[in-house]
């Protein structure tokens, strides 16, 4: 587009979007950026069972997309393919128009700007909240660099900023293991944000949350979209309705319907397989 595209490890074209207060120039560029994720005809089989069946899906830059579907619809497998955990039998997966996800390892994909939140909150239980964020920070991740790494004032500020954003400023020195379930989920989202990802994949963020926590999470996710693309996989329809502009329904490994929540709900096929009405 507007800048030469470079290999993964070098500063990449989205860096300019990830910093707060990006210039009008880049904001304009973003509008024309188009899709950030292309999944085309992806098929994954496990022992003959087709977890994904010719799945084709595009995510726009800056979009907040909710993905719903009954158990076994292939939601988690799709996440696995995007993050490099599972290699598909067939198909294509591109991040932007230059990065072939199927040729990249998990850390490479993470480094390139895709962050993933697991269903079960996974944080570093024995490390303080602050350190959890520190480790997640976008920074050289090599062994030798880690031996001599020192936390700069700038990095410290960035961590404090995220602590406030996810509402854990008071818990900064607590062990992550001592946080409540909801707080762990937010910490994990905070860790994703420290990576300054361009695309966030979030698996069932409100499972097991209280009503207030769910609301707070909805606000957080809506606030995150725009600067980055956010893909949320969720079962809680109330929650999906409260945040989603566009919803994709997966069924038996491929897209059954796509559109606004209202459109999707009116779709007779969706009613049949998922809403059960």
């Amino acid at each position: 587009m507007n800048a030469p595209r470079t290999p993964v490890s070098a500063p990449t074209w989205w860096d300019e979007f990830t910093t707060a207060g990006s210039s009008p120039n880049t904001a304009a560029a973003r509008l024309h950026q188009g899709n950030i994720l292309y999944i085309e005809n992806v098929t994954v089989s496990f022992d003959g069972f087709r977890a994904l069946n010719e799945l084709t899906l595009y995510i726009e830059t800056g979009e907040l997309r909710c993905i719903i579907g009954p158990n076994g619809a292939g939601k988690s497998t799709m996440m696995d393919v995007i993050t490099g955990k599972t290699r598909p039998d067939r198909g294509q997966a591109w991040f932007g128009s230059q990065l072939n996800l199927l040729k990249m390892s998990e850390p490479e994909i993470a480094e390139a700007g895709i962050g993933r939140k697991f269903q079960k909150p996974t944080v570093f239980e024995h490390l303080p909240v602050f350190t959890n964020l520190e480790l997640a920070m976008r920074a050289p991740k090599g062994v030798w660099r880690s031996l001599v790494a020192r936390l700069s004032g700038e990095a410290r500020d960035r961590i404090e900023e995220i602590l406030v954003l996810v509402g854990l400023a008071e818990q900064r020195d607590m062990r992550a293991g001592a946080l409540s379930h909801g707080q762990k989920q937010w910490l994990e989202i905070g860790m994703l944000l420290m990576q300054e990802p361009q695309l966030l994949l979030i698996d069932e963020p409100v499972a097991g949350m209280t009503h207030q926590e769910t609301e707070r999470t909805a606000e957080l996710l809506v606030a995150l979209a725009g600067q980055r693309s956010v893909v949320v996989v969720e079962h809680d329809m109330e929650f999906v309705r409260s945040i989603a502009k566009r919803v994709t329904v997966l069924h038996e490994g491929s897209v059954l319907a796509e559109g606004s929540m209202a459109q999707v709900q009116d779709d007779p096929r969706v009613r049949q397989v998922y809403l059960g009405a």
Partner: protein
Amino acid sequence: MAVTANKRADQVVYGVLLALAVAVPALNLGVGESSALHVSTYTMTLVGKYLCYALLALSVDLVWGFGGILSLGHGAFFALGGYAMGMHLMRQIGTRGVYGNAELPDFMVFLNWKELPWTWYGFDSFPFAMLMVVLVPGLLAFVFGWFAFRSRVTGVYLSIITQALTYALLLAFFRNEMGFGGNNGLTDFKDILGYDLQADSTRATLFVLSVLALAGGYAGCRALIDSKFGRVLVAVRDAENRARFIGYRVENYKLWAWTFSAMLAGVAGALYVPQVGIINPGEFSPLNSIELVIWVAVGGRGTLYGALLGAFVVNFAKTFFTGALPELWLFVLGAVFVLVTLLIPQGIAGYFNREARA
């Protein structure tokens, strides 16, 4: 806070080690045998042995307590370091052996070998042997870890492979054809760098060197743990997948911690051999490796000082019981392990300092 608690513990560790390094040799060499304050050479050597064990325990704590890699084969790295030292000491015997052969150790003459196997080349040189003390265990650990961690072998499967590794080495070193003295191992050492190994002054020097190695190893591990590397290592232990998705090459972190740990174990073995005067394949026994994991579990893993504490406590108990009630020792060891696991899963150190554990 955990950090200040660790600082206090570190001060105690360095203080005790300094006191040992000064007092024990002084009371051995400077105080007459008739005095009540005299420390016998036997006792000094015994404590020196414990110091080597403590360094070995430290190396296990680094990978197990912080990296979550339970090695049941760390005795192999210890033994390899010991063999490297033993081979140098064998070459130092020269013509003083039973057969008076300047070139070949006694057991090779006995086996009717005509020339030194290539594996022994260079070991007459002290610097070369010292290099091998860290290089051989380090290289083995690197190659082993390269395959194991890259294939994402973790947990109990990895533990079993480490056990197999040390068992395979045990069998290999038992064979005379290997050229490392078969089941007798290497012994009958005379001197080290020209100093008589039986002399009190040499023993005292080895003792002080053991203290220094332990203090150095401790400081090195502490620096490693306090660095971002250490935090990543703990992160890998707590949630390996999360660390991977954040962008850390988990296998590399494990690999280097593992390799460094093996080198520490090698140094411990090298200091152990001249003090006990023998190295044989028994050191590769899987039981040894399991026992040393128990030291760390009892002392408290994930604290560094807990490993030291555990090595001393369990080995003092072992010395006492194998002297007083030899047939009971294994039962005591088993009981201690079970009780510690049930009652104080974080070990002695964890019991006294719940906060300090990383």
